[in-house]
């Protein structure tokens, strides 16, 4: 009987790995080896006499930072679990009391991100974000060039107000549909490649423009606030970031159209699809209008009253208003709130605070960047280079969690305004152009099947270089104009 059941069920759903055994073994032992390396590094640093210039609490904080760094960089456990580990180890090692550690989880940045998640969910759920996308494409996308440009700009614009990952996920089906009706051949069509690169790059470039494009900027600000008590307003951040966004939008467009010259003559078929979508949506509903109004009011409040009332309070206030008017149910929102990311940020902020207050971040700065950099400009150049390179292979937030404590330590040493370290870390950490693993936006674009790896690698490398140069030019020449000086006056 058992035989019949097995036979009726078909073969086991298994895959047999046929790679050489040494490769399989290396792959399988990687995780336990890395886990062990992290533990050994922690134990070694913890058991060691404090390094010269480092207090005992700093030495212990360094041990916690080391194990978290290994796990964040290698991703052997989920990023949020590493953050939880940090929150467990900080009180256990005596670096911070338990009450203080867990209180840091209640940082404003964490709640701001929670509010931003819910607001983004509201936009997606009511269809307003799709309407904005379709409207832009319908209004401007009538030739191959304007359609591509509209898609690029539309993704960037939406990422000003929503998480760039959510924007990529939302606009991906539209982009796929456009590519499909235009009968673009996978891996062959220049226009197909350009469309998906425009989608991925648009979301990334737009994502650094405001505090809403992702969790990096709020995380960096949260760590800054816990370490120094200083912060950034919504408007100040946007003011500091916009020239970089403008340069990268122009550069990104040029790179896309030069690397992938447009090879189709008409987008009439795509017009039809976009028109159909617009017709299917009909007129904006009352709910959409109401949510649109609340979003505009929230944006205005962030700009005008962000410093006085706090960004998180405004975001959560908007959330309360949305629910109070019954515009959304909790079950609508829940799938869009990434609780794991919130946990990750809470732990990273606690660790960053412990590193700064114990003197460990300053000590790391003295041991590393101080040897290489001779001026504040060089410091920012090195920090931004690390950020932009690490983010190609690591989560954006993990890069911020890793670099921010060190950057704050360096700032003290070089008498740089520590506030500058938040954008110096968070802006480059949001720009991963070359690899699919760099950011979900890239991965989504790559999954379309229109892009080969080299289609991303070569133009992406060019964009990385441009982005780094643009960031440093803006930091050196533009930021002083708005009152942000690198060198101590």
């Amino acid at each position, binding site marked *: 009987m*058992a*035989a019949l059941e*097995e*036979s009726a069920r*078909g*073969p*086991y*759903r*298994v*895959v*047999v*790995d*046929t790679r050489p*055994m040494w490769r*399989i*073994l290396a792959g*399988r032992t990687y995780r336990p080896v890395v886990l062990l390396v992290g533990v050994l590094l922690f134990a070694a640093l913890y058991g060691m006499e404090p390094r010269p210039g480092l207090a005992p609490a700093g030495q212990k904080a360094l041990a916690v930072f080391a194990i978290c760094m290994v796990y964040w960089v290698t991703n052997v456990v989920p990023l949020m679990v590493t953050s939880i580990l940090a929150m467990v180890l900080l009180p256990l090692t005596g670096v911070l009391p338990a009450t203080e550690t867990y209180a840091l989880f209640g940082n404003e940045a964490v709640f701001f991100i929670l509010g931003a998640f819910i607001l983004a969910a509201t936009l997606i759920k009511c269809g307003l974000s799709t309407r904005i996308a379709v409207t832009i494409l319908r209004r401007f996308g009538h030739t191959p060039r304007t359609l591509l440009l509209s898609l690029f700009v539309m993704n960037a614009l939406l990422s000003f107000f929503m998480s760039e990952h959510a924007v990529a996920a939302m606009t991906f089906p539209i982009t796929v549909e456009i590519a499909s009706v235009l009968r673009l051949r996978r891996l062959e069509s220049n226009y197909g490649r350009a469309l998906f690169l425009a989608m991925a790059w648009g979301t990334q470039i737009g994502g650094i423009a405001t505090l809403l494009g992702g969790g990096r900027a709020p995380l960096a600000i949260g760590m800054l606030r816990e370490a120094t008590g200083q912060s950034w307003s919504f408007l100040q951040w946007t003011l500091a970031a916009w020239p970089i966004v403008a340069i990268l939008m122009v550069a990104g467009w040029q790179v896309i159209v030069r690397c992938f010259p447009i090879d189709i003559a008409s987008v009439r078929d795509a017009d039809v699809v976009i028109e159909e979508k617009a017709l299917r949506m009909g007129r904006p509903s009352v709910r959409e209008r109401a949510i649109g109004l609340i979003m505009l009011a929230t944006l205005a409040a962030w700009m005008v009253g962000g410093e006085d009332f706090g960004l998180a309070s405004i975001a959560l206030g908007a959330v309360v208003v949305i629910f109070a008017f019954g515009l959304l149910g909790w079950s609508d929102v829940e799938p869009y709130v990434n609780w794991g990311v919130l946990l990750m940020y809470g732990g990273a902020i606690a660790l960053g605070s412990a590193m700064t207050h114990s003197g460990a971040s300053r000590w790391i700065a003295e041991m590393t960047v101080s040897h290489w950099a001779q001026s504040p400009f060089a410091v920012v150049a090195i920090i931004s280079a690390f950020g932009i390179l690490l983010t190609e292979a690591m989560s954006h937030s993990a890069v911020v969690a890793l670099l921010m404590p060190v950057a704050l330590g360096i700032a003290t040493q070089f008498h740089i305004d520590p506030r500058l370290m938040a954008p110096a870390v968070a802006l480059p950490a949001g720009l991963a152009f070359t690899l699919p693993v760099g950011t979900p936006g890239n991965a989504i674009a790559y999954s379309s099947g229109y892009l080969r790896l080299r289609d991303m690698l070569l133009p992406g490398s060019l964009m990385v270089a441009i982005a780094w140069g643009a960031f440093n030019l803006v930091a050196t020449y533009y930021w002083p104009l708005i009152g942000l000086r690198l060198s101590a006056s």
Partner: protein
Amino acid sequence: MTNPALLKVLLAANGVRVDPLLRGDPTVDRPLGSSAATRLDLVLPDAVRVSAPIVERSPFLLVGNGRGHLVEGETGGATPLRVAVEVTPLPRFLGRRTRSGMPMSRIAAVRGEHLVLSPAAACGFSVHGAPCRFCVEGARSAVDREAAAVEDVVEVVRAAFEERAGSDVYFNSGVFDAEDGGIGFLTPYVEAVRRHFDTLVAVQVHPPRANAWIDHAYAMGVDALSFNLEIFDETAFERHCVGRARYIGRDRYLEALAYAARIFPSGTVWTDLVLGVEPVASTLAGIDALTALGVVPVVSIVRGDHALPPPDELGPVLAGLYRAVRDRGIALGWVRDLALGVSPLEARWFAGDGARLAVAMQHVTRSRLGGAAARTLARFRRRLRVRGTGDPADVARH
């Protein structure tokens, strides 16, 4: 004769007479009427094993010398043949019945270290009236019996292992007319054996229609796999292997063998090539083609209408078998102790190569400690290589 592999070929092809003086010798006497009564399992020098048919007319005679047994005969050489051999006594368990009343000998046979289990009713091709033309056993199989119960098979294996009759299990499936080529039929038996015993498992089945069944076979615990092609030449294959050609096809055999050779460890996927049914050149071409796929060819001998090739052709074929497997870097030691087939390592005698490393490795794996190490390694390798694809139950099963 210094070539035990040649003696194996000659004994398998010609059979052996038994000296009437050996009547009453408990190691030689076989119960009348049983299938075991028609054969003698002999261990030749260098631990080469053969299952020699007991016949009335043969150039070879088994005699006793007080201390053991000898095979005497004329092989055309200068001096008559006189070689000391060991007669493997019939295991006692084969005379017993399972608790359900089934004779254990109907399910099992012992060939060297292999406990050969045939839980199926009969050869599927014979049932469909399309046995291979050269096949003696399949054509005579009873078709009116049911497949053995899993519990009976487990009982037989336990009885055999308690008697130390065989250390590895070798399943034979007669089922072919299914999507799975008989692998699905054998699944509960293999799973039960793996659950109850620490042993290596080999299966001889037919190519399934989907390669996923080959993955399934490896995942469920099969250590070695055979799809018997029998004949390489396309025309001879269609003429002699009627059922194989009609229901499966030569190309599918080759495809499935090639795929299995990628899934299973080196040297554990084999196929028989029958000697004498097709031209020698064709057998040699088959050896080359199969080894290029990573498959171990085994040259098998059948009695009947098909004469062995003359000695000046036989030697090069078997030497070519050894060299082809060696030169392709395929592991030589896993396919061994075949009753009627010459393994590549046995064929080294024809190539004049000692193959010392492979022979030493085979000695190690024959030892109790070496066998345990081989089984552990096989399990470990399987755990590393097999991954589930979504159904947690599948992952948990292996």
